[in-house]
């Protein structure tokens, strides 16, 4: 439980963090809340030579509404997002999901940026981002770019950030419509065995799945069925299509596929679909 030796630098600005990333490349890792990275390091499954600590950058901790979008600074802690009046009014599903992550200790340390940049398919916030049709604002040596959430999660624990880039903001369209969130866990603090999220947006119904494949994913077949007029129960039967869940002692592939249908059905019902 003692990590391998590493260097530690506290970056005082995003620019400084980018500079350090450019300098050290793959040897360096950004440290935000540390709730994914530090356990891996303690088990020596990750052994970065340098940690660039950005967790204290207050300028990246905010929730605000701008031009029809709810913008969340990447270093906003889950607890702060869950209790943000802006988020609760204009993206209530995002606030709710943040409030269900892990346990109070995790929510007081973990950040939305860290959670999303980690790209864990069993995490809840990436699914919320997909269902809401959100995007990611990232900054690198060549400036700022925005990445659609659909293009962000590439493969297992791999996202569309280059080694020099820092995720600085998460954006979702203002979304006051009904939504449903269902997460099956053994314990309240656990990662989802399977999770499902349904949100009614101006573009239709966004449906996303948690822990049903190597990446956080849309339930595309459900979305398509709904778009072509299927009712919620029938649409939910398509929830497992295109998924690639893994098997472990918490659930077989068949079980996860079954549960995905159940949870999508319930999430759609709660969302009033």
């Amino acid at each position, binding site marked *: *439980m*003692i990590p391998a030796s590493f260097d530690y630098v506290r970056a005082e600005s995003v620019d400084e963090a980018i500079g350090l990333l450019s300098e050290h490349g793959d040897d360096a890792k950004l440290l935000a809340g540390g709730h994914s990275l530090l356990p891996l390091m303690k088990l020596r499954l990750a052994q970065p030579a340098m940690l660039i600590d950005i967790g204290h950058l207050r300028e990246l901790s905010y929730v605000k509404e701008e031009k029809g979008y709810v913008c969340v600074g990447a270093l906003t802690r889950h607890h702060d997002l869950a209790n943000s009046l802006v988020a609760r009014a204009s993206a209530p599903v995002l606030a709710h999901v943040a409030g269900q992550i892990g346990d109070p200790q995790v929510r007081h340390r973990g950040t939305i940026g860290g959670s999303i940049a980690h790209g864990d398919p069993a995490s809840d916030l990436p699914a919320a981002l997909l269902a809401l049709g959100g995007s990611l604002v990232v900054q690198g040596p060549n400036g700022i770019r925005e990445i659609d959430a659909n293009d962000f999660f590439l493969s297992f624990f791999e996202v569309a950030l280059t080694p020099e880039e820092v995720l600085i903001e998460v954006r979702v369209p203002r979304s006051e419509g009904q939504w449903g969130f269902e997460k099956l866990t*053994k314990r*309240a603090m656990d990662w989802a065995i399977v999770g499902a999220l349904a949100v009614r947006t101006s573009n239709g119904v966004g449906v996303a799945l948690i822990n049903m494949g190597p990446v956080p994913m849309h339930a595309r077949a459900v979305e398509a069925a709904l778009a072509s007029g299927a009712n919620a129960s029938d649409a939910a039967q398509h929830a497992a299509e295109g998924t690639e869940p893994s098997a472990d*002692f*918490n659930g077989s592939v068949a079980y996860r596929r079954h549960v995905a249908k159940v949870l999508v059905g319930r999430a759609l*019902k709660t969302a009033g679909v």
Partner: protein
Amino acid sequence: MSILGNRVVRREDPKFLTVGGTYVADLDLPGSVYLTFVRSSMAHAKLLSVDTSGAKAMPGVVAVYTNDDLGIARMPTIMGMTNEAMTQPMLASGTVRYVGEPIVAIVAESREIAADALEAVVVEYEPLTVVIDPAEARKDNDLLFPDAGTNTTFTLDFGGDEALFDDCEVVVELTLINQRVAPCPMEGRSAAAHMTKDGRLEFNSATQAPHGVRDGLAGFLGLEPDKVHVVTPDVGGGFGAKASVYPEDIVVGWCAVHLGRPVRWTETRSESMLGLGHGRAQLQHVRMGGTRGGVISAYRIDVLQDCGAYPAFGAVLPFMTRVMTSGPYKIPKAEFGSVSVVTNSTPTTAYRGAGRPEATAAIERTMDVFAREIEMDPAELRRRNLIGKDEFPYTTPTETVYDVGDYHQALELALEVAGYDELRAKQARRRASGDPIQIGIGLSCYVEITNGLPDGEFGAVEVRPDGKIIVRTGTSPHGQGHVTAWSMLVAEQMGVPIEDIEVIYGDTDVVPRGAGTMGSRSLQIGGAAVNQAAVDVVEKAKDLAADLFEADREDIVLDKSNASFHVIGTPAVSKSWGELAKAAVAKDGNPLFAEVDLASPGPTFPFGTHISVVEVDVETGKVTLLRHIAVDDAGRILNPLLAEGQVHGGIAQGVAQALLEEVVYDPDGNPLTSTFADYSFISAAELPSFETRFTETPTPINALGAKGIGESGTIGSTPALHNAVCDAVAHLGVRHVDMPTTPIRVWNAINDAAPHHDAKNTTKKGGR
């Protein structure tokens, strides 16, 4: 007015709630070196080579040892009952037999250096066939110890009546898995040792039994027991798994002796999950027979006990299961058989209940299956078979003598608190509605044995000239609240305020003897010893007062309202405890003092009834515990607050076994649950507020009328919850779900039953 029976708040708590405790790892030992262990990554392999040269060459590494360097004897057999060819060396020698087995000891100037040095040791393994399933182990196809010629290490066989079930109208048969669990105390194993200037080994240990650690160290290290001084600072839980000495403890002591520097070792959580003994791990085959009218007449349980790689205390725990075979029921014929086998896994040891929860789980689950078979309400079946309150002392078919009980009272009270009939009506309505969220109600009537390996205990009371009272006890509390409880006993006998009482434990220099704290023994024997010492010291004080007052011994009165002695009828002239303590010293130089080595009058048998109410989502298999009602009878209750605390913690752990916890290995013996992310240690979020009640049936066995309460919660709760889950899905054709009743398990059980009872039909109707 008596202080006994009152909710006296814990004297221990202000420290824990403010500055916190002081644990072994917190001790300030200047100049310490840090011990850590290279542990096997293979479940079963020959050690072809162990190259420590890289670690030895690292700056800051003080010493690196393999087993040959130590020259310490192997661990002993367990009470002479386990196979001599299966003992564990201090460090692996030639063969490793479980993942986590220590191979190399590294001593370094810091924990960080030690952690890096671990990675520099190169171990070359030649894999051997892994035996992880105890049923496979029993076949002896692949042996862990070829010299033993078998994997079996301990057997029991009680009865062998081939006609056992011949006159039964109904016989049910069940195979039960009482799964392997990890004790998970908040503080893992930890020790810190150094040689004192006068050549003694001072050993700080996170243990439940300091005198046992002292004797163990002395024996292994070839020291006289009085050359070893064991101290327990605050200990963060143990649950039985810290009641014995581990090889790592001995190596800590050895290093301190040989290096002449303070040596400390504190295991990490990941190490603790592999190195601290595991609990339970029984495979049970159960048969129960009786009449269609609900009279149980015959019962047999056969246990296959998984000992892990080296027989530790777990190997002989079937003995305790045997003792409790027939539970609280009047069953004319009951038999028990057990076989304990080694497998390539962490050794199993005592864990909260230690052999008794397994007995209760078996018979209580089977009672429900039997009730279902004869279509009788499970509460009614229990009511008809419980031993009546006029039948004590009661001798069971396996020759256990229960002291006293009123089992029916506990059952009826639990049913009343639960609102049982209304619950059944609610369940029926929910079933009829076809709602995917179904209700289950589970009962468990239990009786268990405390101070089951009846040891005596030491207790002493000393009055100091300033009037303060010093209590010494051989028990070794690690959360139970003995400081509060023993203070109450002494205050009651001596009339002194509890603030004036200091309770000393966990120091082998100050407390000469002690068996420690395990098996729910402390109050009934350790508390009783302290109580007796207080009674004795009052008698001695009366002798002194008689001298001082020049009065008749029989006329001396202790006025407990102001803690002073006077001659009957003249309370105005009195002597305080402090004055008598001074008089004692003046008389012959000895303090006013009494010590007692109380011999055990035998075990006691707490009992009770637990009821769990659950919701089961039949579409996902997820179980939610809604209510847990516990009626426990531990004889006379000294302090309900402490007793409830024991019951609460016990229920949490018992519920956790039924619902969540399981140590899982893959077929190659790799542990899949060595962190709290994977091992589903229960949290407050999964637990409702418990509904606890006590009935009090004092035992005649001891002066306090007290039985043990430390393990009742665990013993009673597991089968209640397990039965509730099975009950919730029984109408779907499910006969049984193995523990832990995780979502996948429950869902699989529903699915497997579906061809007979169309589960999907039932659930479709309702939707949600």
